[in-house]
Protein backbone atom coordinates (compact mmCIF):
# COMPACT_ATOMS: atom_id res chain seq x y z
CA UNK A 1 0.00 0.00 0.00
CA UNK A 2 1.39 3.40 -0.90
CA UNK A 3 0.96 6.59 1.05
CA UNK A 4 -2.10 7.59 -1.00
CA UNK A 5 -3.86 4.35 -0.18
CA UNK A 6 -2.83 4.75 3.44
CA UNK A 7 -4.37 8.14 3.72
CA UNK A 8 -7.40 6.82 1.84
CA UNK A 9 -7.68 4.08 4.45
CA UNK A 10 -7.29 6.58 7.28
CA UNK A 11 -9.86 8.79 5.60
CA UNK A 12 -12.18 5.85 5.23
CA UNK A 13 -11.87 4.88 8.86
CA UNK A 14 -12.58 8.41 9.95
CA UNK A 15 -15.61 8.54 7.65
CA UNK A 16 -16.80 5.22 9.00
CA UNK A 17 -16.44 6.31 12.61
CA UNK A 18 -18.17 9.60 11.97
CA UNK A 19 -20.94 7.75 10.16
CA UNK A 20 -21.50 5.19 12.88
CA UNK A 21 -21.78 7.87 15.56
CA UNK A 22 -24.33 9.94 13.65
CA UNK A 23 -27.78 10.19 15.26
CA UNK A 24 -29.31 8.45 12.25
CA UNK A 25 -27.24 5.29 12.70
CA UNK A 26 -27.52 5.41 16.48
CA UNK A 27 -31.30 5.50 16.30
CA UNK A 28 -31.21 2.46 14.07
CA UNK A 29 -29.03 0.73 16.64
CA UNK A 30 -31.46 1.76 19.38
CA UNK A 31 -34.29 0.18 17.41
CA UNK A 32 -32.42 -3.08 16.89
CA UNK A 33 -31.41 -3.22 20.54
CA UNK A 34 -34.95 -2.54 21.73
CA UNK A 35 -36.35 -5.26 19.48
CA UNK A 36 -33.73 -7.80 20.55
CA UNK A 37 -34.42 -6.98 24.21
CA UNK A 38 -38.13 -7.54 23.50
CA UNK A 39 -39.10 -4.03 24.50
CA UNK A 40 -42.64 -3.12 23.45
CA UNK A 41 -41.33 0.07 21.82
CA UNK A 42 -43.04 0.36 18.45
CA UNK A 43 -44.10 2.87 15.83
CA UNK A 44 -47.71 2.49 14.70
CA UNK A 45 -48.11 1.20 11.16
CA UNK A 46 -49.92 4.35 9.99
CA UNK A 47 -46.97 6.44 11.16
CA UNK A 48 -44.34 4.19 9.61
CA UNK A 49 -46.14 4.38 6.26
CA UNK A 50 -46.40 8.15 6.47
CA UNK A 51 -42.78 8.61 7.47
CA UNK A 52 -41.81 6.61 4.39
CA UNK A 53 -44.07 8.74 2.20
CA UNK A 54 -42.64 11.89 3.73
CA UNK A 55 -39.10 10.80 2.89
CA UNK A 56 -40.17 10.11 -0.71
CA UNK A 57 -41.90 13.46 -0.94
CA UNK A 58 -38.91 15.31 0.43
CA UNK A 59 -36.17 13.70 -1.63
CA UNK A 60 -38.34 13.67 -4.74
CA UNK A 61 -39.15 17.37 -4.43
CA UNK A 62 -35.59 18.38 -3.62
CA UNK A 63 -34.24 16.28 -6.50
CA UNK A 64 -36.71 17.85 -8.91
CA UNK A 65 -35.73 21.34 -7.79
CA UNK A 66 -32.08 20.50 -8.48
CA UNK A 67 -32.96 19.32 -11.96
CA UNK A 68 -34.97 22.50 -12.53
CA UNK A 69 -31.75 24.41 -11.93
CA UNK A 70 -29.63 22.40 -14.34
CA UNK A 71 -32.20 21.42 -16.94
CA UNK A 72 -32.33 18.06 -18.69
CA UNK A 73 -28.85 16.83 -19.61
CA UNK A 74 -27.35 13.89 -21.48
CA UNK A 75 -25.77 12.85 -18.19
CA UNK A 76 -29.20 12.04 -16.82
CA UNK A 77 -30.05 9.69 -19.63
CA UNK A 78 -26.67 8.00 -19.38
CA UNK A 79 -26.98 7.55 -15.62
CA UNK A 80 -30.52 6.25 -16.03
CA UNK A 81 -29.37 3.72 -18.63
CA UNK A 82 -26.52 2.60 -16.41
CA UNK A 83 -28.95 2.18 -13.54
CA UNK A 84 -31.31 0.06 -15.61
CA UNK A 85 -28.48 -2.15 -16.78
CA UNK A 86 -27.34 -2.68 -13.19
CA UNK A 87 -30.84 -3.44 -11.97
CA UNK A 88 -31.19 -6.12 -14.66
CA UNK A 89 -27.71 -7.51 -14.23
CA UNK A 90 -27.18 -7.65 -10.46
CA UNK A 91 -29.93 -10.23 -9.87
CA UNK A 92 -28.37 -12.58 -12.44
CA UNK A 93 -25.03 -12.29 -10.73
CA UNK A 94 -26.53 -12.55 -7.28
CA UNK A 95 -28.61 -15.58 -8.17
CA UNK A 96 -25.68 -17.57 -9.48
CA UNK A 97 -23.44 -16.49 -6.63
CA UNK A 98 -26.04 -17.57 -4.13
CA UNK A 99 -26.55 -20.93 -5.83
CA UNK A 100 -22.82 -21.43 -5.87
CA UNK A 101 -22.17 -20.78 -2.20
CA UNK A 102 -25.40 -21.95 -0.57
CA UNK A 103 -27.95 -24.74 -0.94
CA UNK A 104 -30.83 -22.30 -1.17
CA UNK A 105 -33.63 -23.54 -3.49
CA UNK A 106 -33.75 -21.71 -6.82
CA UNK A 107 -36.99 -19.90 -6.00
CA UNK A 108 -35.54 -18.47 -2.78
CA UNK A 109 -32.32 -17.54 -4.56
CA UNK A 110 -34.23 -15.72 -7.31
CA UNK A 111 -36.29 -13.78 -4.76
CA UNK A 112 -33.21 -12.78 -2.79
CA UNK A 113 -31.46 -11.74 -6.00
CA UNK A 114 -34.40 -9.46 -6.91
CA UNK A 115 -33.90 -7.54 -3.68
CA UNK A 116 -30.24 -6.85 -4.39
CA UNK A 117 -30.89 -5.70 -7.93
CA UNK A 118 -33.52 -3.22 -6.76
CA UNK A 119 -32.70 -0.34 -4.41
CA UNK A 120 -33.36 0.96 -0.91
CA UNK A 121 -34.41 4.57 -0.71
CA UNK A 122 -33.42 4.90 2.92
CA UNK A 123 -29.90 3.74 2.14
CA UNK A 124 -29.89 6.34 -0.63
CA UNK A 125 -31.01 8.98 1.84
CA UNK A 126 -28.50 7.96 4.47
CA UNK A 127 -25.76 8.27 1.85
CA UNK A 128 -26.92 11.75 0.84
CA UNK A 129 -26.92 12.78 4.49
CA UNK A 130 -23.40 11.47 4.99
CA UNK A 131 -22.28 13.36 1.88
CA UNK A 132 -23.96 16.58 2.85
CA UNK A 133 -22.26 16.36 6.23
CA UNK A 134 -18.95 16.52 4.35
CA UNK A 135 -19.97 19.33 2.05
CA UNK A 136 -20.45 17.21 -1.07
CA UNK A 137 -23.32 17.82 -3.48
CA UNK A 138 -24.87 15.35 -5.88
CA UNK A 139 -26.97 15.40 -9.02
CA UNK A 140 -30.69 15.83 -8.34
CA UNK A 141 -31.72 13.47 -11.10
CA UNK A 142 -30.34 10.52 -9.13
CA UNK A 143 -33.70 10.52 -7.40
CA UNK A 144 -35.31 9.57 -10.70
CA UNK A 145 -32.57 7.02 -11.34
CA UNK A 146 -33.38 5.46 -7.96
CA UNK A 147 -37.05 5.17 -8.95
CA UNK A 148 -36.12 3.64 -12.30
CA UNK A 149 -33.88 1.03 -10.71
CA UNK A 150 -36.65 -0.37 -8.52
CA UNK A 151 -38.37 -2.52 -11.11
CA UNK A 152 -36.03 -4.16 -13.67
CA UNK A 153 -34.54 -6.42 -11.00
CA UNK A 154 -37.95 -7.96 -10.42
CA UNK A 155 -38.23 -8.85 -14.07
CA UNK A 156 -34.79 -10.40 -14.03
CA UNK A 157 -35.62 -12.47 -11.00
CA UNK A 158 -38.83 -13.73 -12.57
CA UNK A 159 -37.00 -14.86 -15.66
CA UNK A 160 -34.47 -16.66 -13.47
CA UNK A 161 -37.19 -18.30 -11.43
CA UNK A 162 -39.12 -19.46 -14.51
CA UNK A 163 -35.97 -21.01 -15.85
CA UNK A 164 -34.55 -22.59 -12.70
CA UNK A 165 -37.67 -23.20 -10.62
CA UNK A 166 -40.38 -23.73 -13.22
CA UNK A 167 -42.79 -25.44 -10.81
CA UNK A 168 -42.74 -22.55 -8.32
CA UNK A 169 -42.79 -19.81 -10.91
CA UNK A 170 -45.15 -21.14 -13.50
CA UNK A 171 -46.42 -18.89 -16.19
CA UNK A 172 -49.91 -18.71 -14.70
CA UNK A 173 -49.17 -15.30 -13.31
CA UNK A 174 -49.08 -12.81 -16.21
CA UNK A 175 -46.10 -10.52 -15.87
CA UNK A 176 -47.68 -7.35 -17.29
CA UNK A 177 -50.15 -6.50 -14.51
CA UNK A 178 -47.49 -7.35 -11.96
CA UNK A 179 -45.04 -4.85 -13.42
CA UNK A 180 -47.81 -2.28 -13.66
CA UNK A 181 -48.62 -2.86 -9.98
CA UNK A 182 -44.98 -2.39 -9.03
CA UNK A 183 -44.54 0.64 -11.24
CA UNK A 184 -47.62 2.28 -9.70
CA UNK A 185 -46.52 1.34 -6.23
CA UNK A 186 -47.33 4.15 -3.82
CA UNK A 187 -43.77 5.01 -2.93
CA UNK A 188 -42.62 5.13 -6.55
CA UNK A 189 -45.53 7.40 -7.46
CA UNK A 190 -44.79 9.65 -4.48
CA UNK A 191 -41.12 9.84 -5.38
CA UNK A 192 -41.59 10.52 -9.08
CA UNK A 193 -44.62 12.75 -8.55
CA UNK A 194 -42.80 14.94 -6.05
CA UNK A 195 -39.79 14.95 -8.36
CA UNK A 196 -41.98 16.22 -11.19
CA UNK A 197 -43.55 18.87 -8.95
CA UNK A 198 -40.14 20.02 -7.78
CA UNK A 199 -39.01 20.21 -11.37
CA UNK A 200 -42.07 22.24 -12.40
CA UNK A 201 -42.04 24.68 -9.50
CA UNK A 202 -38.28 24.96 -9.11
CA UNK A 203 -36.56 26.68 -6.17
CA UNK A 204 -39.40 29.19 -5.87
CA UNK A 205 -41.81 26.36 -5.17
CA UNK A 206 -39.53 24.77 -2.61
CA UNK A 207 -39.18 27.89 -0.50
CA UNK A 208 -42.59 27.94 1.22
CA UNK A 209 -42.53 24.20 1.90
CA UNK A 210 -38.88 24.04 2.93
CA UNK A 211 -39.55 24.18 6.70
CA UNK A 212 -41.55 20.98 6.27
CA UNK A 213 -39.72 19.18 3.46
CA UNK A 214 -36.14 20.29 4.13
CA UNK A 215 -35.66 21.38 7.74
CA UNK A 216 -37.47 18.45 9.35
CA UNK A 217 -35.87 15.88 7.10
CA UNK A 218 -33.03 14.68 9.31
CA UNK A 219 -35.10 14.47 12.44
CA UNK A 220 -37.81 12.49 10.69
CA UNK A 221 -35.12 10.27 9.24
CA UNK A 222 -33.96 9.44 12.77
CA UNK A 223 -37.46 8.40 13.73
CA UNK A 224 -37.80 6.31 10.59
CA UNK A 225 -34.49 4.60 11.22
CA UNK A 226 -35.51 3.84 14.75
CA UNK A 227 -38.56 2.17 13.23
CA UNK A 228 -36.46 0.28 10.70
CA UNK A 229 -34.22 -0.86 13.53
CA UNK A 230 -37.23 -2.18 15.42
CA UNK A 231 -38.52 -4.05 12.38
CA UNK A 232 -35.06 -5.34 11.48
CA UNK A 233 -34.39 -6.47 15.04
CA UNK A 234 -37.74 -8.29 15.17
CA UNK A 235 -36.89 -9.89 11.84
CA UNK A 236 -33.44 -10.94 13.02
CA UNK A 237 -34.93 -12.62 16.08
CA UNK A 238 -37.44 -14.53 13.96
CA UNK A 239 -35.43 -15.14 10.77
CA UNK A 240 -32.12 -16.20 12.25
CA UNK A 241 -32.89 -19.89 12.24
CA UNK A 242 -33.56 -19.99 8.48
CA UNK A 243 -30.14 -18.56 7.62
CA UNK A 244 -26.80 -20.25 6.99
CA UNK A 245 -23.29 -18.84 7.14
CA UNK A 246 -23.23 -18.83 3.34
CA UNK A 247 -26.35 -16.69 2.97
CA UNK A 248 -25.14 -14.36 5.70
CA UNK A 249 -21.84 -13.97 3.91
CA UNK A 250 -23.72 -13.31 0.69
CA UNK A 251 -25.64 -10.46 2.35
CA UNK A 252 -22.36 -8.68 3.00
CA UNK A 253 -20.41 -9.68 -0.11
CA UNK A 254 -23.17 -8.98 -2.61
CA UNK A 255 -23.50 -5.24 -1.93
CA UNK A 256 -19.75 -4.89 -2.31
CA UNK A 257 -19.83 -6.77 -5.61
CA UNK A 258 -22.68 -4.56 -6.83
CA UNK A 259 -20.78 -1.49 -5.73
CA UNK A 260 -17.72 -2.54 -7.73
CA UNK A 261 -19.89 -3.15 -10.77
CA UNK A 262 -21.49 0.27 -10.41
CA UNK A 263 -18.13 1.90 -9.86
CA UNK A 264 -16.99 0.43 -13.16
CA UNK A 265 -19.91 2.14 -14.91
CA UNK A 266 -19.45 5.51 -13.22
CA UNK A 267 -16.99 6.89 -15.80
CA UNK A 268 -19.63 6.39 -18.52
CA UNK A 269 -22.13 8.53 -16.61
CA UNK A 270 -20.09 11.66 -16.04
CA UNK A 271 -21.34 11.97 -12.46
CA UNK A 272 -19.63 14.17 -9.90
CA UNK A 273 -17.83 12.64 -6.92
CA UNK A 274 -20.91 13.05 -4.76
CA UNK A 275 -23.19 11.72 -7.47
CA UNK A 276 -20.94 8.74 -8.06
CA UNK A 277 -21.02 7.86 -4.36
CA UNK A 278 -24.80 7.92 -4.44
CA UNK A 279 -24.98 5.89 -7.62
CA UNK A 280 -22.66 3.23 -6.24
CA UNK A 281 -24.65 3.16 -3.00
CA UNK A 282 -27.88 2.69 -4.94
CA UNK A 283 -26.45 -0.33 -6.71
CA UNK A 284 -25.20 -1.75 -3.42
CA UNK A 285 -28.47 -1.22 -1.60
CA UNK A 286 -31.17 -3.87 -1.34
CA UNK A 287 -34.92 -3.28 -1.41
CA UNK A 288 -37.00 -4.05 1.68
CA UNK A 289 -40.39 -2.50 0.88
CA UNK A 290 -41.33 -2.76 -2.79
CA UNK A 291 -39.62 -6.01 -3.76
CA UNK A 292 -40.77 -8.11 -0.77
CA UNK A 293 -44.38 -7.21 -1.55
CA UNK A 294 -43.84 -8.03 -5.23
CA UNK A 295 -42.27 -11.37 -4.35
CA UNK A 296 -45.26 -12.38 -2.24
CA UNK A 297 -47.28 -12.13 -5.42
CA UNK A 298 -44.84 -13.24 -8.06
CA UNK A 299 -42.97 -15.95 -6.18
CA UNK A 300 -45.12 -16.84 -3.17
CA UNK A 301 -43.13 -20.05 -2.59
CA UNK A 302 -40.03 -18.01 -1.77
CA UNK A 303 -39.65 -17.53 1.97
CA UNK A 304 -39.85 -13.94 3.31
CA UNK A 305 -37.95 -15.04 6.39
CA UNK A 306 -34.93 -15.45 4.11
CA UNK A 307 -35.10 -12.46 1.83
CA UNK A 308 -36.31 -9.99 4.41
CA UNK A 309 -33.76 -11.03 6.99
CA UNK A 310 -30.93 -10.79 4.49
CA UNK A 311 -31.99 -7.48 3.01
CA UNK A 312 -33.26 -5.63 6.08
CA UNK A 313 -31.50 -7.53 8.83
CA UNK A 314 -27.98 -7.86 7.38
CA UNK A 315 -27.39 -5.79 4.26
CA UNK A 316 -29.18 -2.67 5.37
CA UNK A 317 -27.28 -2.32 8.68
CA UNK A 318 -24.03 -3.23 6.93
CA UNK A 319 -24.57 -0.55 4.31
CA UNK A 320 -25.67 1.99 6.87
CA UNK A 321 -22.67 1.54 9.12
CA UNK A 322 -19.83 0.46 6.83
CA UNK A 323 -21.04 0.37 3.25
CA UNK A 324 -21.79 4.05 2.82
CA UNK A 325 -18.29 5.31 3.70
CA UNK A 326 -16.83 2.41 1.72
CA UNK A 327 -18.82 3.20 -1.41
CA UNK A 328 -17.93 6.83 -1.04
CA UNK A 329 -14.25 5.97 -0.90
CA UNK A 330 -14.72 3.66 -3.90
CA UNK A 331 -16.53 6.33 -5.88
CA UNK A 332 -13.76 8.80 -5.15
CA UNK A 333 -11.43 6.60 -7.19
CA UNK A 334 -13.73 6.41 -10.19
CA UNK A 335 -14.11 10.13 -10.74
CA UNK A 336 -10.45 11.06 -10.46
Amino acid at each position, binding site marked *: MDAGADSTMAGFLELAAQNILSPVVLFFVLGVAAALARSDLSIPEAIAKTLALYLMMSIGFKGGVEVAKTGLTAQMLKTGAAGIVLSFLIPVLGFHLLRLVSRLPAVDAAAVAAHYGSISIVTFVAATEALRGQGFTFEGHLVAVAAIMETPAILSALVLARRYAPSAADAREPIGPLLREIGLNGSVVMLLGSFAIGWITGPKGLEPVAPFLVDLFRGVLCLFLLDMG*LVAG*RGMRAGWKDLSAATLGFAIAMPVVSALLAAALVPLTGLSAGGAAIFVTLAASASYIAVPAAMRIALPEARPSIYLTLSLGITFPFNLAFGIPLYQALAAFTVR
Partner: protein
Amino acid sequence: MVDMHPKKRVEIVVEAPALHRLTDALDRAGVTGYTIVPALAGRGRGGSWSGEGLAGDAGRMVIVVSIVDAARADAVVSGVYAVLARQIGVVSVSDVAVIRADHF
Protein backbone atom coordinates in the same frame (compact mmCIF):
# COMPACT_ATOMS: atom_id res chain seq x y z
CA MET B 1 -90.03 -9.76 14.66
CA VAL B 2 -87.60 -9.41 11.81
CA ASP B 3 -87.29 -12.28 9.33
CA MET B 4 -83.89 -13.96 9.35
CA HIS B 5 -82.34 -15.86 6.44
CA PRO B 6 -79.57 -18.45 6.70
CA LYS B 7 -76.27 -17.54 5.01
CA LYS B 8 -72.61 -18.45 5.27
CA ARG B 9 -69.98 -16.17 6.77
CA VAL B 10 -66.61 -16.64 5.10
CA GLU B 11 -63.66 -15.23 7.05
CA ILE B 12 -60.27 -15.12 5.37
CA VAL B 13 -56.99 -14.12 7.01
CA VAL B 14 -54.75 -13.27 4.08
CA GLU B 15 -51.34 -11.67 3.58
CA ALA B 16 -51.75 -8.02 2.55
CA PRO B 17 -49.91 -8.20 -0.79
CA ALA B 18 -52.38 -10.82 -1.99
CA LEU B 19 -55.46 -8.88 -0.94
CA HIS B 20 -56.37 -7.62 -4.40
CA ARG B 21 -56.07 -11.08 -5.86
CA LEU B 22 -58.39 -12.35 -3.16
CA THR B 23 -61.04 -9.68 -3.62
CA ASP B 24 -60.85 -10.23 -7.39
CA ALA B 25 -61.53 -13.91 -6.74
CA LEU B 26 -64.48 -12.99 -4.53
CA ASP B 27 -65.80 -10.72 -7.26
CA ARG B 28 -65.46 -13.52 -9.82
CA ALA B 29 -67.22 -15.93 -7.48
CA GLY B 30 -70.15 -13.52 -7.44
CA VAL B 31 -70.26 -12.48 -3.80
CA THR B 32 -72.48 -9.45 -3.21
CA GLY B 33 -70.00 -7.81 -0.87
CA TYR B 34 -67.20 -8.09 1.61
CA THR B 35 -65.60 -6.04 4.36
CA ILE B 36 -61.88 -5.77 5.05
CA VAL B 37 -60.71 -5.63 8.66
CA PRO B 38 -57.16 -4.82 9.78
CA ALA B 39 -55.10 -7.29 11.76
CA LEU B 40 -52.45 -6.08 14.18
CA ALA B 41 -50.35 -9.17 14.67
CA GLY B 42 -50.59 -12.91 14.78
CA ARG B 43 -48.94 -16.27 14.89
CA GLY B 44 -49.21 -19.32 12.67
CA ARG B 45 -47.14 -22.32 11.75
CA GLY B 46 -44.85 -19.97 9.88
CA GLY B 47 -44.02 -17.99 13.01
CA SER B 48 -45.33 -14.73 14.34
CA TRP B 49 -45.75 -11.38 12.59
CA SER B 50 -46.68 -7.86 13.57
CA GLY B 51 -47.80 -4.96 11.44
CA GLU B 52 -46.20 -2.45 13.79
CA GLY B 53 -43.63 -0.27 12.15
CA LEU B 54 -44.13 -1.74 8.70
CA ALA B 55 -43.99 0.81 5.92
CA GLY B 56 -44.84 -1.77 3.26
CA ASP B 57 -47.36 -4.51 2.71
CA ALA B 58 -45.10 -7.53 2.98
CA GLY B 59 -45.33 -9.33 6.29
CA ARG B 60 -48.74 -7.99 7.21
CA MET B 61 -52.11 -9.79 7.22
CA VAL B 62 -55.63 -8.50 6.77
CA ILE B 63 -58.99 -10.14 7.29
CA VAL B 64 -61.74 -10.28 4.71
CA VAL B 65 -65.26 -11.11 5.83
CA SER B 66 -67.91 -11.95 3.28
CA ILE B 67 -71.45 -13.09 3.89
CA VAL B 68 -72.60 -15.29 1.05
CA ASP B 69 -75.52 -17.36 0.03
CA ALA B 70 -75.24 -20.98 1.14
CA ALA B 71 -75.78 -22.05 -2.47
CA ARG B 72 -72.76 -20.03 -3.50
CA ALA B 73 -70.53 -20.85 -0.53
CA ASP B 74 -68.82 -23.79 -2.22
CA ALA B 75 -67.96 -21.77 -5.30
CA VAL B 76 -66.67 -18.93 -3.17
CA VAL B 77 -64.47 -21.19 -1.06
CA SER B 78 -63.12 -22.85 -4.22
CA GLY B 79 -62.35 -19.49 -5.78
CA VAL B 80 -60.66 -18.32 -2.62
CA TYR B 81 -58.75 -21.55 -2.33
CA ALA B 82 -57.39 -21.18 -5.85
CA VAL B 83 -55.82 -17.88 -4.83
CA LEU B 84 -54.77 -18.84 -1.33
CA ALA B 85 -53.23 -22.18 -2.23
CA ARG B 86 -49.97 -20.39 -2.95
CA GLN B 87 -50.31 -17.56 -0.43
CA ILE B 88 -50.22 -17.30 3.34
CA GLY B 89 -53.73 -17.39 4.77
CA VAL B 90 -56.51 -19.14 6.64
CA VAL B 91 -60.15 -19.60 5.58
CA SER B 92 -63.07 -20.43 7.82
CA VAL B 93 -66.78 -20.67 7.14
CA SER B 94 -69.63 -20.47 9.61
CA ASP B 95 -73.43 -20.33 9.66
CA VAL B 96 -75.12 -17.00 10.17
CA ALA B 97 -78.58 -15.56 9.79
CA VAL B 98 -79.17 -12.19 8.18
CA ILE B 99 -81.98 -9.70 7.82
CA ARG B 100 -82.69 -8.24 4.37
CA ALA B 101 -81.98 -11.38 2.34
CA ASP B 102 -82.20 -9.38 -0.89
CA HIS B 103 -78.91 -7.86 0.12
CA PHE B 104 -76.90 -11.05 -0.51
